[in-house]
């Protein structure tokens, strides 16, 4: 069953990447799936719509839950990181305030590997942020603010 949901998530990721203008081969490389599977996905074949529905529900969960589900389904951090980054439907901006002491807890907490320490201060790559806020939950000085970007 988790395997089917994983396929569902990959399908949704493939659709997103296609919308972003990527070729089947590029999508296959990105998702580490063979090219014919991607073609099948994108031609609307072989997947049960049920799996896709479940996958869609997962994506719509709040960011930390989506992240945890993805981690549980893929059981491989690199893969889940990729899927979350492609499929998440919201973008975030991470602000790290000067009160940061450089303890590195956020670096450890961030599953997306969006945070790095530099000159005793954390620096976040907002493009990688999935909005789970695990980092700000751990931050001892409350120095991390995560804002959702609204597009209109």
């Amino acid at each position, binding site marked *: 069953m988790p395997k089917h949901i994983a396929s569902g998530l990959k399908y949704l990721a493939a659709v997103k990447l296609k919308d972003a203008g990527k070729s089947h081969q590029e999508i296959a490389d990105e998702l580490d799936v063979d090219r014919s599977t991607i073609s099948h996905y994108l031609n609307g074949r072989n997947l049960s719509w049920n799996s896709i529905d479940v996958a869609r529900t997962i994506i719509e969960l709040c960011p930390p839950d989506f992240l945890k589900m993805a981690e549980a389904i893929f059981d491989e951090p690199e893969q889940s990181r990729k899927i979350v980054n492609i499929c998440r439907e919201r973008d975030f901006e991470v602000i790290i305030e000067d009160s940061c*002491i450089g303890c590195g*807890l956020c670096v450890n907490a961030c599953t997306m590997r969006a945070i790095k320490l530099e*000159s005793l201060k954390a620096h976040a790559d907002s493009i990688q942020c999935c909005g789970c806020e695990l980092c700000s939950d751990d931050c*001892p000085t409350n120095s991390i603010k995560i804002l959702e970007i609204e597009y209109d």
Partner: protein
Amino acid sequence: MIRNLKEVKDNNFDITRSAEEVRNLSFNDHVCLGCGICESTCPVEAITLNAIAVDARHRISNDVYFSGHEKIAQNFKEDFDVQRISIDESKCVLCGMCSGLCPVDALVLTIDGTPIKEIEAYPHYNAFSDIDDDECIYCKRCEIACPRDAIVIERVLPDRADLVTGEIQVDDDECIYCGVCQELCPAEAIVVDQETGKESIVIDKDACVYCLVCKKACPTNAIKAVCRSCSYGEYDLDPAKAVVKGNSVIDSELCVFCGWCEGVCPTDAAKHKKPFEGSIEIDDEKCQACGACVDICGCNALAFPVSSGPGSRMEHVIANNDYCVKCKACAKACPNGAITVKRTEIDHTPISSTTWKEALDAIKD
């Protein structure tokens, strides 16, 4: 969340967090000055400075009783032995601020095995101590003066035979084995066996300094001896052979940069620089001469004046600003608030982090 692991051994402990990088904070109790900078600096209030005044008294004066020390003595327990500081590992985030601001190496944070001292991003105090072997005459004054026993001077003395030479021999026909020479010899170079039938006299030429005392005292003029330098002068004694050689080692872990070594050095060999500059003042009115500050001071910068005679009482402690590192441990230990230490200058490497800069500024007066 990744949990910290704490490992305690004697009064030392390690706190470790292993994730993508391994952070380890180790505390060395015997190095700690008890200044409490870590306690006030910790951003998550994980550090507590323990009752070290009592502990210091215990360590120093196990069998000694000072009169007039009731304030400390009432807390004195035979088995009192605690870590100078405690760190709550569930609160500690291993940021390293305590380690970065510790004026000695009592708290050391390592990241993947590298101490933050060696990582450029972290601030370091500009402090040092050094003994120049070219200038050092290996007199050991610094070794004796060092309050932390951080200095070891190893010296190689010249051969005695290269400094004094001569000739000595005993005329066996004249010698009566009286033993006068043996008793007089300041170098203990002569052994006389006086037992009847087994009489003998042996002179150890390596030990003999040719002072000629034996020759002058011999009742039978049996000893013939000359001192080479007395007879011929010192022209053929090689001065290079009379030089004391050696090497000096300062234990960088124990050194507190107090400057005693430089203060007592008769040459220009010992040099130091303190991390902090400032002042220390004793309020004579408030000081009750309890001695807590003297016990706690890691620099021997505090002392009672030498008694002026029997029955005279020590009125108050005196501070030597030159050897004080302005750590403030004494001011914290003083039960009467009689000591005021001011840290006016802190010399550290440049730092870009705002919080770290603020933390360093906060320990300045």
